[in-house]
């Protein structure tokens, strides 16, 4: 029942789309018909091209994200627990926060050439900042008494990080991961549109340039669905990892 309610608006959008086409308001060379796009989508899903290109994009984005996590989360935690480290990296983070990460892609192309390395480097860079900032704020927000009681029970310096700080700062850190995931796809696809041999961004752009608009729409839809699925899966994973936390919704009934 709730599934159905969720799908209803999409059905309405399809209906409106179809109506735009068949009323002649939007000619097919501007808005391909629902049927044409469905046909193109079926064709894409039957072939290997779309899987290859989405696969390449995902692999590069996830690699960049993973590198970003390995660098960014420890850095954020370190900055939160050491004045000196904070003092050094803080200004650098603030200064680069406002940098549009796509702007450095041309430089990366210059340095690393077109392809894998440029895209992974760009994704890493864009994922880094949210990861650092969210984990930093997460650790900073851990209440002092929690740390004191842990210390009183004989928790050492290293154990404090692993056993106390990380779990306590888990929610913001994972929110940072989710934000970084979003950034990764944006920068990955933008990079592919700027210069790439492979990838879904490249493919969509190619369909656009060659006038295969039905395929272009189909590829965009496929990409949106895949990203939506990944994001939803990550959200479920986060909720699973944090199932020990007080549920916000528990108190919501009282309003």
């Amino acid at each position, binding site marked *: 029942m709730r599934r159905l309610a969720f799908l209803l*608006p999409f059905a309405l959008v399809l209906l409106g789309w179809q109506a735009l086409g068949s009323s002649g308001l939007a000619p097919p060379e501007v808005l391909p018909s629902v049927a044409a796009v469905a046909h193109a989508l079926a064709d894409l899903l039957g072939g290997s091209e779309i899987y290859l290109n989405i696969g390449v994009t995902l692999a590069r984005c996830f690699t960049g994200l993973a590198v970003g996590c390995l660098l960014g989360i420890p850095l954020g935690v370190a900055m939160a627990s050491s004045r000196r480290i904070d003092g050094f990296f*803080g200004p650098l983070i603030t200064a680069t926060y*406002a940098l549009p990460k796509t702007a450095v892609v041309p*430089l990366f192309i210059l340095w690393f050439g077109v392809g894998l390395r440029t895209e992974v480097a760009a994704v890493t860079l864009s994922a880094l900042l949210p990861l650092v900032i969210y984990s930093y704020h997460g650790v900073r927000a851990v209440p002092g008494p929690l740390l004191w009681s842990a210390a009183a029970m004989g928790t050492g310096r290293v154990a404090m990080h692993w056993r106390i700080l990380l779990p306590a700062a888990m929610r913001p850190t994972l929110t940072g991961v989710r934000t970084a995931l979003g950034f990764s796809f*944006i920068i990955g696809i*933008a990079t592919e549109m*700027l210069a790439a041999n492979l990838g879904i961004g490249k493919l969509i752009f190619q369909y656009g340039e060659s006038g295969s608009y039905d395929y272009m729409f189909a590829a965009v839809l496929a990409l949106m669905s895949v990203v939506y699925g990944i994001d939803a899966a990550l959200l479920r994973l986060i909720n699973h990892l944090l199932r020990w936390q007080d549920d916000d919704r528990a108190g919501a009934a009282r309003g």
Partner: protein
Amino acid sequence: MMTARGPRVVERIARLYPLLLLALLWEAVTRLHLVPPLFLPPLSVVLASLPQLLAQGDLAMPLLISLYRAAIGLVIAGVLGILLGLLIARVRWARLLFAPLVAFGAPAPKIAFLPVFILWFGIGHVSKIALVALTSIFPFIFAAQDGAEAVPRQQIWAAQAMGTGPWRLLAGVLLPAALPALFSGLRIALPYAIVTAFTAEMIAGGGGLGGALVMAQRYFETPTVYADIVVMLAVGYLLDIGLLALRHRWLRWQEESNDAPN
């Protein structure tokens, strides 16, 4: 006054030593020819090229074009997004109709729509404005929705008991109540808007600072590339500072800053 102020300014500047260190490293590496100048020209050369670029209008005009696109897109996103968010929070049919579409659209990498918008609107202003609007509408929707849903029901009831009708409630009570959240949303949406404008210009051309950057790269004018990047960075930074100052003035009534970490 001066004596109290002087040391604080010095202290503040001293705290920026990592940036200075980085600049020195950059200068040294390039002066020692450890990297080819085509990859990384000396910082001094980049900075020296700024006045000339400014004088020729090679920076200001493209920057204005980019900012224009970002601003218009942001305004459209703000108006539509806030209205949608408030409706989703308060009106049943609006929630049923729009919430699923918003949930599906929010995580999508909006840049993928660039070819679609180029098809519909060409490579001029409109396609970029549309992409900016599509990108930055979601922070507004969520901010307005969260803000409106967090209003205590007694506050809404108090307004209703004093004769506030439904539209007045939306504009006169829920909107101001959501204002702090909206500011946080704007603070997220503003960099989205600018980055999207730059990126769309880089990919699709059609002028603007992003276009200028790509052209400079194509002609191997590496100092110009770096100069463009420096300008983008400065613009983003200054706009964020301006926004915070604005919030400080407008939201005096608010208890404490509810900044999301960003």
